[in-house]
């Protein structure tokens, strides 16, 4: 039930707010006056340092979007009033017995907008507090208690209302190494914790109410024990997640335990064993999932320049009836015959069962050498080479399903800018993508749509997701979850031969590097050769950097040729050029000028040929005035274009600052954005001013 349910209560909060602002700005001797001098600070309960302030803000934005003859306008006028107050380091009887901090904040806003000339109004209230206490903070056994609550209420026209509540409370007990156990059980420390988190949301629009209530109970412990030559870390956590509301309720219990142990042994402690075992299980609503991970590693330093490593890795994933068990073994010998030459020989084997699809295994041997040599004028020569031969046997039928692969939306949306999915030969019609900005559970995941929010680009055996600039559901940097199926590849035995080499020279301010790598797969028996592929890639890179007293300059250039070929996906080639420039100018009068540019051009040379470019230029001038006062003038231009798709162009310019006079501060912000994507053009001037006063 909403904490603020009546207009009277909300109005009273506003009166308190307005009265507070009036008192603070008009009473006492101007900005030197402090309300906090009235607060007593002696006795068994002593208050610590006060912090507080009031902030008033105004924001104006006039966004116009034109597509052909159709124009959409959004005019925003928004007022914000915030009050916050907190006390840090209060204590009861003695700071060593109980100390803490507590704060409260009240925020209000009123927004009057015009959407295509039609008036809209909304206002909101945010009330929050937090309390954090430490009990026996200087003792080896410390307790922490905390609670926080934020309640947000937004009203819109025609009775629309959104109420949201976020709150948590809990505690943690800590036992440090210098506890009473220090002699009988030395080097032991532990944390035990329990907390509850709640996130409720209720939206009413046109007489209908949609509610989402999520409660998470979390408990666990983490214990560490140190020995003379070993360390042990044991962790356990349980999460009870229940979800009720307008959509079907669900409840999950997730448990996670892990044990991490490492030991030095041998006559000169030259042998090290690392062991990590982790188990996670999630059950509820007819879903049972488990994940087991075990990593056992033994490293023996025979001599200072010769070591061997033995590693066994087990992953067992059981998801909704599909079980994937992978056992792999690695043996590595590292030998350094001279100080500037390191050779590594690696032998690897793996056996994986995918139930009910089948099994696959591989064995591989790999050799690697790295060499450095000093050159005149302080330079150095770098040489490296790597060769790998691998034999795979795969007996898996049918496509394999990947659930909820995690990705992040790029910071800028434009043609050709996106991310590549992990698997090869993906069946693109099976791709389903969710935006999880609001949460990963149930109705909080937002389903995105092909052609509206993103497009799919196939690059040989790989698949790339490109987010469309016109997407209303996905924002830059959003977390995304992608599910899909992929064709498993050949059924039989095939080999993969990989070779790579690199050579480079570096001096104080310049470095030049060239690299080549190739890989080729060959069918030895069985069927499915059309899913085998070969690649080769050549790269040349030049980096320059130089620092002077006032100037820091950097530049880079990269040229790359990529080729891959398979019977199933055909030939895919591209050449890539990438350039970067950076200049920072710092004259001696508290001013910094930064210029940054990045240009990338990609030519896809096999039909259907296309050209992709991504240009990004940014300039910022920072001027520091007296202590704490500064302003920044900035400008940015970015363009992403690709054959077959409209060009995305963004221009942004503005100025922002921070000015303080005594306890009063100003934060002005002016910006202007001009964006075009094909026939759609957006013009968006934006002004924001915040004025506040510290208590």
């Amino acid at each position, binding site marked *: 039930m909403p904490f603020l349910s009546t207009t009277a209560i909300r109005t009273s909060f506003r009166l308190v707010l307005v009265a507070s602002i009036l008192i603070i700005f008009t009473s006492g001797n101007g900005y030197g006056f402090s309300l906090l001098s009235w607060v007593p600070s002696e006795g068994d309960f002593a208050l610590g340092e006060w912090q507080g302030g009031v902030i008033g803000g105004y924001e104006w934005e006039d966004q116009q979007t034109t597509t052909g003859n159709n124009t959409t306008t959004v005019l925003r006028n928004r007022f914000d009033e915030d009050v916050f107050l907190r006390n840090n380091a209060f204590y009861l009887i003695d700071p060593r017995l109980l100390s803490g901090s507590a704060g409260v904040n009240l925020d209000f806003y009123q927004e009057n907008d015009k959407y295509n000339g039609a008036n809209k109004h909304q206002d909101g209230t945010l009330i929050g507090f937090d309390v954090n206490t430490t009990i026996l903070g200087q003792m080896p056994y410390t307790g922490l208690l905390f609670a926080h609550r934020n309640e947000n209420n937004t009203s819109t026209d025609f009775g629309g209302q959104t109420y949201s509540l976020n709150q948590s409370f809990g505690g943690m007990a800590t036992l440090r190494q210098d506890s009473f156990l220090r002699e009988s059980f030395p080097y032991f420390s532990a944390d035990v914790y329990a907390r509850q988190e709640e996130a409720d949301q209720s939206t009413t629009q046109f007489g209908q109410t949609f509610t989402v209530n999520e409660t998470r109970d979390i408990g666990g412990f983490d214990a560490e024990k140190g*020995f003379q030559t070993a360390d042990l870390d044991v962790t356990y956590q349980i999460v009870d997640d229940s979800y009720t509301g307008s959509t079907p309720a669900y409840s999950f219990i997730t448990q996670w335990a892990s044990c991490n142990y490492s030991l030095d042994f041998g006559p000169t*402690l030259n042998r090290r064993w690392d062991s990590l075992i982790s188990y996670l299980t999630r059950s509820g609503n007819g879903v049972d999932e488990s994940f087991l991970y075990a990593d056992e590693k033994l490293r023996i330093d025979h001599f200072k320049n010769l070591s061997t490593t033995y590693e066994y890795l087990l992953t067992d994933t059981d998801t909704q009836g599909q079980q994937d068990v992978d056992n792999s073994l690695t043996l590595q010998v590292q030998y350094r015959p*001279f100080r500037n030459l390191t050779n590594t020989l690696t032998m690897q084997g793996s056996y994986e069962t995918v139930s009910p699809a089948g099994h696959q295994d591989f064995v591989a041997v790999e050799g690697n050498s790295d060499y450095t040599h000093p050159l005149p004028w302080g330079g150095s020569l770098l040489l490296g080479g790597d060769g790998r031969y691998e034999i795979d046997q795969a007996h898996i039928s049918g496509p394999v399903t990947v659930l909820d692969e995690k990705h992040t939306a790029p910071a800028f949306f434009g043609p050709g800018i996106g991310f590549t999915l992990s698997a090869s030969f993906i069946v693109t019609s099976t791709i389903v993508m969710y935006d999880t900005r609001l949460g990963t559970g149930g109705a909080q995941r937002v389903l995105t749509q092909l052609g509206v929010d993103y497009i799919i680009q196939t690059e040989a055996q790989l698949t790339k997701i490109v987010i469309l600039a016109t997407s209303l559901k996905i924002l830059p940097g959003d977390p995304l979850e992608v599910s899909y199926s992929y064709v498993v590849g050949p059924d039989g035995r095939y080999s993969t031969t990989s070779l790579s080499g690199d050579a480079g020279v570096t001096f104080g301010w310049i470095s030049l590097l060239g690299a080549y790598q190739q890989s080729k797969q060959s069918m030895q028996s069985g069927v499915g050769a059309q899913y085998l592929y070969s690649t080769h890639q050549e790269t040349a890179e030049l980096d320059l950097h130089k620092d002077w007293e006032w100037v820091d300059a950097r530049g880079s250039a990269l040229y790359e040729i990529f080729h891959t070929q398979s019977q199933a996906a055909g030939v895919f080639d591209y050449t890539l050029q990438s350039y970067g420039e950076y200049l920072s100018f710092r004259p001696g009068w508290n001013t910094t000028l930064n210029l940054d540019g990045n240009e990338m051009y990609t030519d896809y040379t096999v039909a259907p040929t296309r050209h992709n470019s991504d240009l990004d230029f940014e300039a910022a001038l920072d001027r520091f005035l007296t202590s704490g006062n500064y302003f920044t003038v900035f400008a940015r231009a970015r363009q992403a274009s690709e054959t077959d798709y409209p060009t995305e162009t963004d221009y942004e310019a503005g100025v922002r600052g921070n000015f303080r006079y005594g306890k009063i501060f100003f934060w002005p912000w002016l910006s202007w954005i001009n964006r075009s994507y094909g026939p759609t053009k957006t013009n968006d001037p934006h002004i924001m001013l915040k004025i506040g006063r510290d208590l």
Partner: protein
Amino acid sequence: MIGGCSEESRYSVLSFFFEGVPKPGQKPQWQQVAHMPRRPPPAKATPTPAPVAVVAEKYPFGWLPALLKTMPHDAAGYPDMVAAFKEKKIDPLPGVEQDHVMPAAKKIADMDIVLIPKGKTKVTFSHAIHTTLVTCKSCHQTPFKMTTGEKISMDDCAMCHEKVAFPIKGECVRCHPAMKKKPPKEPPKEKLLDGRIKLARAKSSDANLSGIPPASFPHLPHRVTFRCYACHSTIFPMKEEGVKPITMQEISSGKFCGVCHNGKIAFSGDDLGSCSRCHS
């Protein structure tokens, strides 16, 4: 090919390309790896020390205001410490009780020195009362040299007699008996009565952020309990120059206030609830 060359040729070729090539006649060394233990072995259990008997504090709550009421006061209203000492209203200890053994009082130089022999301003200085309370070094050779005929200024006496001892302004008759008694111009200042010394905190101190106020030292209860030389200048120098900062770490390790405030003689800074007794 290199294997067929002489050792010198082989060395010169290999050392051109590689670092750490063994010199001719020198065999390649296989150096053993030796790692240090991650931690020292656990310390042997030490016998539990015998519990320390905590001495109950001598002075009950409110003892000082009660004492001040019984003490003689001068014309200005300040407690007359000398009269109180002579009337045995107070009995300042010569030193700190260490393990409950009282240190011996030092020898008192019982003599009067005539500073101004006659006239309205004639002064006879009582050496006895001063040597009862302070050490010789507190006054000699600065500000008073031990020579005859030395010129003495009122400012020299004011080094103590405006700060902790009775004030010289308005109390002329206490040194110059020939002068007439004057009524006090203003009532005694509360601070001087209480003798509370507010200690300044270094600007760079981390404690500034903790919300705990700087310490204030109640001088008067210490003064009626101990003679001046119990603390000055072995524990606390009386001059501002050369005074070292006082930190809680040093107090906990038995320096400065920690000489007595160690939980045995007086309450300890480590006792819960004791912070506000000094930091308030």
